[in-house]
């Protein structure tokens, strides 16, 4: 199906690497591959989770971003203090669009930014006192909070503040969880270690002492769905419709109680494996709760996942799954009938975070599109093992791609659509290539579930077939061969 042969893909990789000094070239070559979908283990062909090279433009984030931004931040009834200078929290505030219900500033705090706003004197004399005072103030101003987490930024680790002691004392006084998270940005090579540290903090502070309870026979939890644009909501309705009882959903629109309710479930449903596998493994070992990775992007994968989930339960749930699939089938057919003719054969390149580089492939394929290149910011070996099977042979796979490499790949492959983040968006749009942000859904969403697929299809069509692209060339340069764009309502 792919338009490039293995030789061509490999030649492209070599050509792009040509400009690097010998050392960097050798290092970067390990992170790029032409896919071979017969591989069991991707680690033979691609290296991941390594430090980015100095001098190249990496697209990664930091451990603090992984903990505060991804795992802890969306727990809505807790206050998450960005401990350190003001910038880390303020510039990332509310950027991930984790939707939630509640009254912000009263009983929920998702989009607010709490920071200890470190100044020079705090660095010199230490900030523990300031933190203690801040926790006190937070408690006075927002008494309905259910707990507090202290998310360390870089300087905290550097000056050696003892946030554990402050948190422990405060937790006793307030009789609420106060969780110190050692997620200083410099730890690890990307946001990935931040996820791990955050999961460990959940284990040590939220699940500590929580015993296994007997729950209902159909109790499940949804873990690692961050409810971006409402994703978790359009997922859980499907589970509920098939007869399951979703007792916990976090961290998107999640609460402290839901985290603590997890040990009663029969099955943990894991959406983002990369960021939440740690806590799922822990619960499997401690409470004997199995976990299952699922994919709710596009009707093909949704049906596969619903059946896989149902297989863990009895006939009633299995029938429920079939009923849900059958109910939405005509709706999905209508979406495909409408958009497939407009999108068929279009080529997509992706570069995203934890799971989407592989999970959305099925949704594009449902629309007749083809993913010709994909890559992760912070994946590990196991993510690539899962990816090589999803991608076509000889397609391009890039790990921690640099700004330069990504641009060069795009110039050569000339995809019809790119799905990546805000930092990449305008570069590619200025090159005249349609683009969708695949982290934040470009202020749209949800994209999960059946309802999400309809929105996904519309958005991809809107990006690719926008009449804007016919205006990329000045009229006097366009001449006769100017491509006529399809009008959206054609």
């Amino acid at each position, binding site marked *: 199906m792919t338009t490039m042969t293995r030789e061509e893909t490999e030649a492209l990789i070599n050509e792009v690497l040509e400009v690097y000094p010998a050392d960097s070239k050798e290092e970067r070559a390990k992170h790029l591959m032409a896919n071979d979908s017969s591989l*069991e*283990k991707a680690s033979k062909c691609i290296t991941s*989770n390594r430090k980015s090279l100095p001098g190249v433009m990496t697209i990664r984030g930091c451990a603090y971003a992984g903990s505060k931004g991804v795992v802890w931040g969306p727990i809505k009834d807790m206050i998450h203090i960005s401990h350190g200078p003001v910038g880390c929290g303020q510039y990332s505030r509310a950027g991930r669009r984790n939707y939630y219900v509640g009254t912000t500033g009263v009983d929920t705090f998702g989009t607010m930014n709490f920071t200890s706003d470190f100044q020079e004197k705090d660095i010199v004399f230490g900030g523990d006192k300031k933190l203690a005072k801040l926790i006190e103030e937070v408690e006075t101003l927002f008494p309905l909070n259910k707990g507090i987490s202290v998310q360390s930024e870089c300087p905290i680790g550097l000056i050696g503040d003892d946030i554990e002691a402050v948190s422990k004392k405060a937790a006793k006084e307030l009789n609420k969880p106060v969780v110190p998270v050692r997620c200083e940005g410099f730890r690890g090579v990307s946001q990935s*270690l931040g996820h*791990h540290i955050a999961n460990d903090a959940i284990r040590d502070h939220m699940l500590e002492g929580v015993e296994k309870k007997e729950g209902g026979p159909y109790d499940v939890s949804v873990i690692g769905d961050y409810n971006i644009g409402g994703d978790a909501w359009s997922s859980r309705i499907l589970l509920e419709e098939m007869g399951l009882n979703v007792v916990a959903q976090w961290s998107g629109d999640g609460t402290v109680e839901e985290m603590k309710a997890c040990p009663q479930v029969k099955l943990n449903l894991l959406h983002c494996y990369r960021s939440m596998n740690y806590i799922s*493994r822990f619960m499997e*070992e401690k409470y004997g709760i199995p976990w299952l990775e699922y994919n709710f992007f596009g009707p093909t994968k949704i049906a596969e996942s619903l059946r896989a989930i149902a297989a863990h339960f009895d006939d009633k749930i299995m029938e429920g799954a079939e009923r849900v699939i059958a109910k939405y089938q005509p709706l999905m057919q209508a979406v495909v009938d409408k958009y497939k003719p407009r999108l068929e054969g279009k080529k997509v390149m992706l570069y995203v975070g934890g799971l989407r580089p592989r999970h959305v492939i099925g949704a594009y394929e449902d629309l007749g599109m083809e993913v010709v290149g994909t890559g992760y910011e912070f994946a590990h*070996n196991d993510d690539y093992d899962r990816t090589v099977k999803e991608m076509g042979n000889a397609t391009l796979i890039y790990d921690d791609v640099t700004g330069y490499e990504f641009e060069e790949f795009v110039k050569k492959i000339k995809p019809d659509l790119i799905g990546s983040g805000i930092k990449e968006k305008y570069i590619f749009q200025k090159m005249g290539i349609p683009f969708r942000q695949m982290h934040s859904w470009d202020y749209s969403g949800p994209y999960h579930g059946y309802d999400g697929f309809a929105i996904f299809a519309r958005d991809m069509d809107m990006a690719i077939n926008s009449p804007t692209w016919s205006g990329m060339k000045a009229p006097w340069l366009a001449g006769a061969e100017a491509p006529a764009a399809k009008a959206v309502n054609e």
Partner: protein
Amino acid sequence: MPSVMIRQTADGKLSFYVAKKDLEETIDTMEFSTAEKWGGEVKLTDGSLFYIDPMPAPKLPTTIRAKKM
């Protein structure tokens, strides 16, 4: 001697997970795998070798010590 978590995967294989290193590999062969004696030399699919002190088969998943060979 890293702590590793061994778990059964859906396809019936054993996975070998080193939390400290965030490394997940599949176990290729294990020297002993009976109910009374379990462990010994473990070969992973990436070729690396570990040694687990033989013990009665534990309930999976479990976290144990393994020695890198």
